[in-house]
């Protein structure tokens, strides 16, 4: 009985055409964007229907995705893939190889360009992800406050400390400091390091990776300088040691913050008092030469291998990253499409005219890195986080020791797992 019913349903499915399930990220802006594009797609593509669903709730989208793959309830298409996490899925042979699909090379050339694409190559030399968007992590500062206190926007650590010294103050005279320079995270959650240690390390090293061919590549002066930077900030009281997670920047309780462009809208929404802010690259050690690289916080489209309709899925991915779709992405979410020559393309000019504060982020794109693509990245960042906590937040071990521990642990992980 069940089998007959199932057969009828399957037959009906085939007659009507393909249905593909697409999971997008859960923040409101991205859901709105996905809804608009999917609606448009379904309207004009009667042969393939897309079913949109935000990633189900869970501790992190990676965990949900893993669980779904194990339970074989994964979607056909997913757009929130962190390239650093990709290798795990590639190793498990769960992702569709995209470079074998129709017009892959042509599409790449038109949108991304070979140079950028290389950063997204899997260790086996093939491509399993389609770069979608970037959120370059940068330093945003309160320009009104800086002008009032006569502070120069910091490009180097030296300049940062000068600014920090002036910013950190007791503004209401109750004997307790209530304004600080910046408020880096105190928690050990592995992904927090993508927004403090990693961008500073990339800025200090012209975009160097943490790993090189399964070995730690960060036991160096730059990494120690970065760890030392955070240690000093906490030790000198420039960074508050509090467990609160409220948005201190929007409340003007800190003068600087490190974020990607997605956060700008949030700041504007949660400001108690309106103020102006400006975005600049991550500060670099004194005497650093060259541009300040940063972590690009990229997200990619992936198609799962167990999809029934790989060609249709590829068509949908291309649709979602078309010239027009990229413009909507930029406009609705404030996130930067991975598209060569974006900032000079007249097609996107009107968005940048309207939203000037996206320009610094878009200009930063050539100087971003996607981060290390390792199946052990979570464990490595987790341990780095513990060292960061011990050294930077609590100052119980010197910076060089913290870096050495973290590097040794990477060896340990690769040796044992």
């Amino acid at each position: 009985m069940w089998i007959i019913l199932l057969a009828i349903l399957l037959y009906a499915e085939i007659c009507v055409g393909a249905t593909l399930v697409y999971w997008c990220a859960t923040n409101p802006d991205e859901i709105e964007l996905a809804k608009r594009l999917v609606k448009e797609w379904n309207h004009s593509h009667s042969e393939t229907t897309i079913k949109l669903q935000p990633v189900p709730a869970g501790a992190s989208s990676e965990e949900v995705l893993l669980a779904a793959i194990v339970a074989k309830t994964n979607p056909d298409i997913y757009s929130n893939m962190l390239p650093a996490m990709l290798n795990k899925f590639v190793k498990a042979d769960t992702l569709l190889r995209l470079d074998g699909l129709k017009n892959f090379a042509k599409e790449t050339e038109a949108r991304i360009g070979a140079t950028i694409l290389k950063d997204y190559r899997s260790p086996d030399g093939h491509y399993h992800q389609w770069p979608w968007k970037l959120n370059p992590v940068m330093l945003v500062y309160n320009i009104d406050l800086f002008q009032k206190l006569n502070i120069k926007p910091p490009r180097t650590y030296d300049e940062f400390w000068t600014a920090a010294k002036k910013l950190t103050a007791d503004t209401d005279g109750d004997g307790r400091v209530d304004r600080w320079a910046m408020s880096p995270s105190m928690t050990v959650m592995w992904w927090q390091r993508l927004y403090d240690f990693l961008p500073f390390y990339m800025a200090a090293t012209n975009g160097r990776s943490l790993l090189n061919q399964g070995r730690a590549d960060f036991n160096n002066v730059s990494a120690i300088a970065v760890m030392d930077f955070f240690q000093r900030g906490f030790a000198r009281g420039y960074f508050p040691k509090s467990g609160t997670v409220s948005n201190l920047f929007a409340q003007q309780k800190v003068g600087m913050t490190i974020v990607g462009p997605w956060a700008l809208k949030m700041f504007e929404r949660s400001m108690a008092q309106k103020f102006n802010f400006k975005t600049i690259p991550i500060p670099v050690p004194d005497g650093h030469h060259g541009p300040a690289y940063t972590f690009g916080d990229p997200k990619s489209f992936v198609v799962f291998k167990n999809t029934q309709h790989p060609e249709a899925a590829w068509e949908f991915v291309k649709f979602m990253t078309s010239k027009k779709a990229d413009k909507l992405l930029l406009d609705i979410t404030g996130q930067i499409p991975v598209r060569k020559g974006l900032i000079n393309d007249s097609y996107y000019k009107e968005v940048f005219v309207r939203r000037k504060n996206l320009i610094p982020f878009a200009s930063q794109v050539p100087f971003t890195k996607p981060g290390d693509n390792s199946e052990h990245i979570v464990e490595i960042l987790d341990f780095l986080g513990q060292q960061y906590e011990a050294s930077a937040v609590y100052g119980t071990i010197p910076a060089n020791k913290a870096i050495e521990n973290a590097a040794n642990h990477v060896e340990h992980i690769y040796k044992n797992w």
Partner: protein
Amino acid sequence: MQSEQSHSKAGILFTSPYLIHLVVFFLYPVGFSLYLVFHRWDLMTDPEYVGLRNFTYLMSDHLFWQALTNTLYFLVIHIPLQIIVALALAIVLAKPLKGRVFFRATFFLPVVISGAAVTILWQRLYSTEVGLINYVLSLVGIDAVPWLTDPGIAMPAIAIMATWKNLGLYVVFFLAGILAIPQTVYEAAKMEGASSWHEFRYITLPLLKPTMFLVVVMSTLGGFNLFIEPYVMTGGGPLGSTMSVVLYMYKQAFSFQHMGYAATLGFALALIIMVCVFIQKKYLDSERYY
């Protein structure tokens, strides 16, 4: 013959809910975990046989030993605190006070509230800047205590919270134990000249030994399973001081996808709990008098 067969059919049918539950939620998971102990499995690829490698890794994994030390530290604070507070409260509630039904119900309330909700509530209470506890302390001139961000204080703070959460349950146990002691035994002691302290020391306490054993074992089991409190409140920090064995196991399983190693941790924990309860049984268990 016919009826015998239909009888056994009915028997199977009646026991099937339990049997299914046993197999699906106990036998299968335990069996599968045991299988995983000898394998490496990242959820997605096929498990790979590794022999005793998970076990040898465990022996040299200082993060595990730190988590175990943390958990034992938690137990050392939690169990005595739990017993003292619950016993004191039970003694008060055993007396014929006005409104004792209300108080008995009130103290039981936290037991039935979800652990996650209680944890979030206490996270607010413990907040260094805006927490109620520090506000009350500030009224009597005590400086703000960094409850959850000081590596020396975080675990005791969690132990206090866990004690509060389970208090009602253990009060009920002690109350039942106290009320089971006949009033005449106290009268006999009183006629011999026993003071309240004598009564507590020589009558109540020794006669509560079976209850005490139950409470110690139950809070040991609960304590070793410490998870939701550090998971929600501290993430195992600060400086790993609240990283419990179960939280570490969770991290190995679901953050790092080391399923085989997590299963090994689970078995190690079960073994440690067994040893602990065995020792407790040896020193605490006694005959039941009532």
